[in-house]
């Protein structure tokens, strides 16, 4: 069996992410799932100009994502992170939904919180019908976010904060 059905270890997840996972885990109806994800996608806010302007740097581009998604992590004064996203493909609605999920679940937490998030968490939100190509892109968003958080965490550790 592949890893699609694997439940993430919720003990190490943020309470908000745990709560969102709980909600989505209970959805068996595809229509209801789609409706909830579209509602999330409708809340998408693009990266503010003080963080990034077009053309967005390649270092922030999600690999293997056909929706041309970008991710940034902003270190706030209290040591927590605020995550930002851009989705350049107008049809990238799943990427926009995933961005809102990650922002809601992880913004305002310390960098370590991102470390606990498994990349395949997207399958819990989007369901097992998620195509291989789409799953690849959404997992890429999580992977890049974790990498950016890790970089900031290491920088913080090096500076002794």
């Amino acid at each position, binding site marked *: 069996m592949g890893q699609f059905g694997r439940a993430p270890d919720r003990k190490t997840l943020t309470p908000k992410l745990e709560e969102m996972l709980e909600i989505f885990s209970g959805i068996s109806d595809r229509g209801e799932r789609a409706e909830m994800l579209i509602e999330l996608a409708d809340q998408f806010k693009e990266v503010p100009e003080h963080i990034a302007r077009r053309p967005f740097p390649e270092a922030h581009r999600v690999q293997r994502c056909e929706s041309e998604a970008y991710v940034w992590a902003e270190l706030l004064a209290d040591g927590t992170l605020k995550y930002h996203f851009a989705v350049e493909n107008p049809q990238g609605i*799943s990427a926009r939904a995933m961005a809102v999920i990650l922002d809601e679940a992880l913004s305002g937490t310390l960098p370590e919180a991102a470390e606990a998030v498994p990349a395949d968490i997207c399958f819990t939100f989007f369901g097992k*019908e998620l195509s291989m190509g789409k799953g690849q892109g959404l997992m890429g968003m999580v992977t890049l976010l974790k990498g950016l958080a890790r970089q900031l965490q290491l920088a913080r550790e090096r500076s002794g904060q």
Partner: protein
Amino acid sequence: MSQVQASSEIKERGYKNAEILVSTDWVAEHRNDPGLRLVESNEDMLLYPSGHIPGAVQVDWTGDLNDQLCRDYIDGERFAALMKRIGVTPDTTVVFYGDKSNWWAAYALWVFRLFGHEKVKLMDGGRLKWEMEGREMTREVPAYQPTEYPVRQRDDQKIRAFRDEVHQHVKAGKKLVDVRSTPEFTGERLHMEDYPNEGALRGGHIPGARSVPWARAINPDNGTFKTAEELKAIYEQEQGLSSSDEVVVYCRIGERSSHTWFVLTELLGYPNVRNYDGSWTEWGNSVGLPIEKP
């Protein structure tokens, strides 16, 4: 652009069966015609419910067209039930469109053809072009009067190929087109990262296959098909295919290759093209089947 201009613009591209391709203008003018049904088929399950062409119904490649227990398509009874649900009769002209430059729309069209539904068309440029042109979209899901549709068994002989048939095809030295990306063709990429169990055990391609990634057939700026002359330059001058060839096309699961099947069969008029939907996920994992690497 008027309907006549739109139609003539497609006709001027020199396709063998130009009638099968319709423009976004044509769809805008004809979408409410009796006897016509718009069908959206996407990879992304969120796209249709987030907005679609008014009057369009959704046909989902996993939920509607594939058997849920056997790796195969639905049978005649379930196809008839699907047609009844979306209000299609044997006389209805079904116009397909979708995301990814009509990957899944071409796949759905191909499956409809397996059941002998011949009145099919594809909207050139797909969903992206319609959206780029700022045309009307809605989230309202239409409901149509259920229709009567006869139960027809699938004809898997003419346009579909199975593993053993492909093996014989290879042994006979006949033409194959691998429409996957170059890294998939060369074997550099076996599967999606982190998911080794969901790809294929071996990387490479079916022996003798020519590599022509599906996207070469479209104009990347708006997803429309290239002209017949441009397509012939790729498939014939460059790859040595001819309309007299028996050709098998394949990809990973048969969806991208449906797009190339459409190009070769409908736009260039090749009479003997079959889509191997088992594709690399079957061939690359099968015991005893040869593969080739560059």
